């Protein structure tokens, strides 16, 4: 009995030992800022932690505490933290997640807080992704284009023209190439379209597809016009007519297609630029792969992106100090370190000039050449977009790509059902 009582007491003592308060300012006037980072790859986490260490070493009065967040749950976690007044001071997120927080008054307007150096170094098109109602609610610092990762041996054997950012494939040419690469149980391309909406919308910018049109009165309507149709029609025809794209991968995520890609089952896979890290790690010895630009349309290589962002919480009493930390973190050299760690591209012009980002190795040069073509994702600031995406566009596109419905029904659902959804947010 004594042993049991002792065990219980030890357990209680351990429980109490676990009880401490959170961060905050020390009595000696030192400030502590909590920086919630979503870095997750080994190199990226290390780069972030290293930069925090360097800041802390140089700024003993403003200490930054690195807090690990996760992409998987960041929205719910931040929403609750904001509501409870316990949000981190500096917040890492993606621009397409910021609208609700910005309109909700949870994020600080950075317009007057950021140094001119940073404002002028990042192009206007990137600032557009974080601008809501004339306020700037984050610093877009990393972005990634969608590229084609190709099996170089198969391209050589098929003797197809290798596209470059200066001379890319058109969508029609891309369709022909995938046909040539197909046969003997192999597909020219595998489209991982578990999340078909962002891939379709972002690539459709190359043909001037906007999908969301803002009228003079500020209301947004969905119109599925010619420019919006080129990409979905190409994918649909590759799967249904040419059989040059595998129907098996339509419901898969990007990582799921890699084993088939390595085994030569698919010649190309359209993926985000950062997937190169997984390919580098997982590809069999001697597997020769290369990065190609996504096909170009009437608007060239334009495509939509939602950059990763750094924001400051409206509730923090130390906005200036937080902005100073952002300035440090996003110095050109530091931005390059973060970009290399995440296998992504920096948004800032000076950082993009770093030699490490212009090497042909692992496709860095191809990706960097695409940076100038990246635009704000079409749905970036459309209220009601998440519901339109989940309830209307995702099932409609999935059915269209799998051949269950035709283009007319796809248009009807995207427009009619979609506008009903958006109307509820714009009353």
């Amino acid at each position, binding site marked *: 009995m004594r042993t049991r009582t002792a065990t219980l007491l030890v357990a209680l003592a351990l429980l109490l030992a676990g009880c401490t308060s959170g961060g905050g300012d020390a009595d000696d006037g030192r400030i502590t800022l909590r920086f919630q980072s979503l870095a997750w790859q080994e190199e990226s986490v290390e780069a972030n932690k290293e930069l925090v260490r360097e800041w802390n070493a140089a700024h003993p009065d403003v200490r930054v505490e690195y807090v690990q967040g996760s992409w998987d749950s960041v929205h719910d976690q931040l929403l609750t933290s904001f509501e409870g007044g316990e949000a981190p001071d500096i917040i890492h997120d993606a621009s397409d997640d910021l609208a609700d927080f910005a309109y909700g008054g949870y994020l600080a307007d950075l317009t007057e807080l950021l140094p001119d150096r940073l404002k002028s170094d990042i192009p206007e098109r990137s600032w557009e992704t974080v601008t809501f109602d004339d306020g700037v609610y984050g610093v877009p610092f990393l972005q990634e284009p969608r590229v084609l990762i190709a099996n170089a041996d198969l391209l050589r054997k098929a003797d197809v023209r290798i596209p470059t950012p200066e001379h890319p494939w058109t969508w029609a040419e891309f369709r022909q190439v995938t046909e040539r690469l197909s046969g003997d149980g192999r597909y020219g391309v595998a489209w991982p379209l578990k999340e078909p909406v962002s891939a379709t919308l972002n690539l459709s910018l190359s043909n001037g597809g906007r999908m969301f049109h803002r009228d003079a009165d500020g209301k947004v309507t969905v119109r599925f016009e010619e420019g919006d149709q080129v990409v979905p029609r190409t994918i649909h025809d590759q799967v249904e007519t040419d059989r040059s794209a595998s129907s098996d991968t339509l419901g898969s995520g990007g990582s799921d297609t890699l084993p088939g890609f390595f085994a030569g089952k698919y010649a190309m896979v359209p993926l985000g630029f950062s997937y190169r890290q*997984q390919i580098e790690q997982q590809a069999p010895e001697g597997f020769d792969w290369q990065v190609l630009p996504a096909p170009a349309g009437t608007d060239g290589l334009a495509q939509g992106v939602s950059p990763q962002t750094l924001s400051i919480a409206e509730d923090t009493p130390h906005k200036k100090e937080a902005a100073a930390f952002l300035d440090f973190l996003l110095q050109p050299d530091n931005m390059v370190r973060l970009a290399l760690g995440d296998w992504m591209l920096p948004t800032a012009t000076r950082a993009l000039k770093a030699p490490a980002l212009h090497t042909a190795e692992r496709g860095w040069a191809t990706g960097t050449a695409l940076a100038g073509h990246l635009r704000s994702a079409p749905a970036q600031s459309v209220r009601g977009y998440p519901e339109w995406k989940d309830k209307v566009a995702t099932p409609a596109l999935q059915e269209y790509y799998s051949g269950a419905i035709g283009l007319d029904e796809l248009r009807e659902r995207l427009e009619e059902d979609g506008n009903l959804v958006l109307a509820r947010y714009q009353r």
Partner: protein
Amino acid sequence: MRTSTTARVGQYAALLAYLVFLAFPFLWLISTAFKPPRELGSLHPTWIPENPTLDNFRQAFDEQPLLHAALNSLLAALGAAVIAVVIATPMAYVMARRRGRLARAATGWVVVSQAFPFVLLIIPLFLVLKNLGLINSVPGLVMVYVVWSLPFALWMLAGYVRAVPAELEEAAAVDGAGRLRTLVSVTAPLLAPGIVATALFAFITAWNEFFFALVLLKTPEKQTLPVILTHFIGAEGVADLGPLAAAAFLATLPSLVIFALIQRRITGGMLAGAVKS
């Protein structure tokens, strides 16, 4: 009635299939945890890694504070299990033995309370805990877990209490045992397997819980294993599969060990105390 050989073979085959079905994810997890990245990307994966490696474990420990998180999970789960059982046992006894309006209302409340989704509860809970200064603390999380697991623990234990024949308590009373003596010497031993099973339920529920821990714990030193595991997942669901599998494998071990230690007591204690010595 004797079971025919064919029927028996069928039963064993069904049992085997069920065991394989249950074990498959865990065995695959172990296999993945020991595979190097190149084998993870193979179109024809093997059960036994061709070049087994401990690199995934090294990387998982290097990148995330797994031991610290395991300790936090253990404290939260043990605390929740002990407190939930201590509170639920007398309540369950009253619910099961007393047949009045109050007991019926309590039963009804237990059922209704299970219908509330987490998202409705989390913000009020967050604010209450914040006012108590219990955000970012394991005791705060324990309080939430106790509240969360109590209704089901109560429901479960009440069932165990009902399974103990009231006649045994009456017989003890006839033999001259007082109320307390009857409870301690007759009812409690018979209820022990139920208490252990309920504690195990509360422990595993808290051990696996993610959402409350995610929202209530702010700093890495306080976070629990399920929260830490999500740090191996990137944007658009891309996962660092090897280290994630290694960390997930380690995360399953404590509950497996505890279950292995306790399950004998659950079955062994079923009839303990039923016979007068």
